[in-house]
C-alpha cells in the first residue's frame, strides 16, 4: 500500500496535529502555555513505564498517560490562574525546564538515557481515529456552552465574569484538558518511536508545538492542524537544505509575523461567503 517512510510521516503528522490541538484548547481560554512538551513527556513516560515495567496493555497505558498529563495540568493550571499572558508563558516555560532537569536525575525512570524498547503499538489507525474524534469534538464545541464560555473568557475575561461565566472553572478546565490531550499524544508518541528520553520533551519541543498554532492560526480549530501538517512536512521537504534547515525555520517565523501574524487560517477561510465576494461582479465594480 504505502511505503514505510510515508506511513511514518503520516503518523507524525497525526500526532503533531493532536499536540497542536492540545495547545489550541488552552489558548482558547486565553492561556498561553510554552511548556506543553512537559505534559506530552509526562504522558509518554507514564505509558512507557507502565508497559515496559508492568506489562499493561496499550489502551490502558495510553489512558493512564493522558490521565497523568491531565493531573499535572490541573496542578499547574490551578495555581497559575492569576498569571496573565507573558507571565503565564514564562511560568509554563519554567515548569518545562524544571521537569526535564528533574527527570534527567531520576534513575528509576531511566535518567538521562531514557526508556528503551517500548513496544511499537501505535499505528496510523489509532492516531487518525483519535484525531477524527478530536476534530468532531472541536466542531461540536464551537457553538456549545463550553466553546462559548472559552471564547468569552479569551475575548474579555472581566466581562465574561460579570456575565456569570465561572472563569476559574473554565480556565482550569481548558488547561487540564489541554494537558490531558498532550499526555495522550505523548503516549502515542512513546509507543511509536519506541525510545524516549528527557531531551525529546525540552523547551524546543514546546516551542515547536507553539509554532504549529502560530503558523496555522488560532482563529479556527482547523488552523493548528494545518500548521502541524505543514511544519511536519517542512523538514522532509526542506531536507535538501541539510544544515541550513534551522536557519530557514527560524527565519520563517520572522517572516510570518511580518506578513501574516494571525496565522494562515482565519475564521472565514473556509466559508463560501468570504470567497464568493471576490467573484461577485457588483462587489468588484464597487472596489476602488
Amino acid at each position: 500500500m504505502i511505503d514505510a517512510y510515508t506511513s511514518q510521516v503520516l503518523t507524525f503528522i497525526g500526532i503533531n496535529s493532536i499536540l497542536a490541538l492540545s495547545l489550541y484548547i488552552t489558548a482558547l481560554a486565553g492561556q498561553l502555555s510554552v511548556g506543553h512538551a512537559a505534559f506530552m513527556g509526562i504522558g509518554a513516560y507514564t505509558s512507557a513505564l507502565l508497559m515496559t515495567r508492568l506489562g499493561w496493555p496499550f489502551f490502558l497505558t495510553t489512558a493512564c498517560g493522558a490521565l497523568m498529563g491531565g493531573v499535572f495540568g490541573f496542578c499547574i493550571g490551578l495555581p497559575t490562574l492569576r498569571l496573565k499572558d507573558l507571565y503565564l508563558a514564562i511560568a509554563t516555560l519554567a515548569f518545562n525546564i524544571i521537569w526535564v532537569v528533574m527527570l534527567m536525575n531520576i534513575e528509576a525512570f531511566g535518567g538521562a538515557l531514557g526508556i528503551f524498547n517500548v513496544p511499537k503499538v501505535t499505528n496510523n489507525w489509532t492516531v487518525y481515529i483519535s484525531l477524527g474524534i478530536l476534530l468532531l469534538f472541536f466542531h461540536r464545541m464551537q457553538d456549545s456552552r463550553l466553546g462559548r464560555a472559552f471564547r468569552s473568557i479569551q475575548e474579555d475575561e472581566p466581562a465574561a465574569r460579570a456575565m456569570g461565566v465561572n472563569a476559574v472553572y473554565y480556565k482550569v478546565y481548558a488547561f487540564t484538558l489541554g494537558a490531558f490531550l498532550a499526555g495522550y499524544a505523548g503516549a502515542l508518541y512513546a509507543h511509536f518511536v519506541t525510545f524516549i528520553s528527557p531531551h525529546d520533551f525540552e523547551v524546543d519541543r514546546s516551542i515547536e508545538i507553539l509554532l504549529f498554532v502560530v503558523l496555522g492560526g488560532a482563529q479556527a480549530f482547523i488552523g493548528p492542524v494545518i500548521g502541524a501538517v505543514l511544519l511536519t512536512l517542512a523538514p522532509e521537504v526542506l531536507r535538501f537544505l541539510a544544515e541550513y534547515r534551522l536557519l530557514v525555520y527560524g527565519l520563517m517565523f520572522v517572516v510570518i509575523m511580518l506578513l501574516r501574524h494571525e496565522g494562515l487560517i482565519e475564521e472565514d477561510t473556509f466559508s463560501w461567503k468570504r470567497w464568493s465576494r471576490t467573484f461577485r461582479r457588483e462587489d468588484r465594480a464597487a472596489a476602488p
Partner: protein
Amino acid sequence: MLAQQLVNGLTLGSTYALVALGFTLVFGILGMINFAHGEIFMLGAYIALLLVTMGGFSIFWALIGGMVGAALLGMIIERVSFRPLRNVSILAPLISTIGLSIFLRSLAQIIFGAESTRFPVSIKTEFFQLGPFQISLLQIVILAISFGLMAIFQAFIKKTKIGKAMRATSESLYTAGLLGIPVDRIILLSFAVASALGGVAGILLGLNFNAISPLMGKMVGLKGLTIIILGGMGNITGAMVGGLFLGFVEVLSVGYLTSSYRDAVAFALMFLVLLIRPTGLFGRVVR
C-alpha cells in the same frame, strides 16, 4: 571554601546582572521580552573572538568591538521584530524573536561549528589574597568592568537628559511622544544599550569560564528571564540585585548540591516567585 564560592558567585552574578539589565531595559520600555537577547550575548562573545583572532586586536579593543557589534545587532532586531509589530499583538514580537534566536543560533553553529572555543588570550591568573577571600586577576577585571558599566548605566539613566527621556518613554510611550520625545529613536537607543550590555556580558562570561559556544546564549537568555522576574520586570535595581543573587545561588548549589540540578534551581525559584509575587521582589504591584 565558602569565601571562594562567594567570590565566584559575585563574578558570575555580575555578568548575569548585565544580561538582566538588557532584558529589563527592553521590557521597561516596550513591555516585551526580546527572546533573542541570549543570542546577542553569544554573538558579542564571538565578535570579540573574531577581533582578537583575525584582527589581532587586544582584548580591550575586542571588548569595545563586541559591544558595538552587539549594539548594532540589537538595533537591527528592533527594526525587524519590534517596530513593525508594535501594535499588532503581544505575541507577535515574542514569536518573531524566538524565530530570530533559532536563526542566529544555527547561523553561529554553521559559521563557528558546534563545539566550544576559547579566547586565545590568557589574562595572567595571579591570585590575590584578601583575608579569607582568594580572587584571581581575571575575576577582578570582570568585576571591575561589570560594576563599572552598571554604575555608568545608573548615572546615565538618572542624570542625563537622554536617560530621563528613556524613563519617560518607559512610563508611557504615548505621553512621552506627546511631550516631544522622539520615541522611535529612544527605543532604538534602548535596544542598542541593552544589547551592548548583553554583548559585554557574553565576553566576560566567556573569559570567566574560558569557553564560548554557539549554544551559550540559550540557557543564559532563559536565566536572564528568571532574573528579571525575580527582580521585577522593568526594574533596574531588581535586575542587578537579581543577577547577583542568581550568581550566588548557582555557584552555591553547584558546590553544595549536585551540579545537575543547577539549572533547575534558578527556574524553581522563578516559578515560586511567579506564584507568590508575580511582580517580582522589587516590582510595583500593577493596579
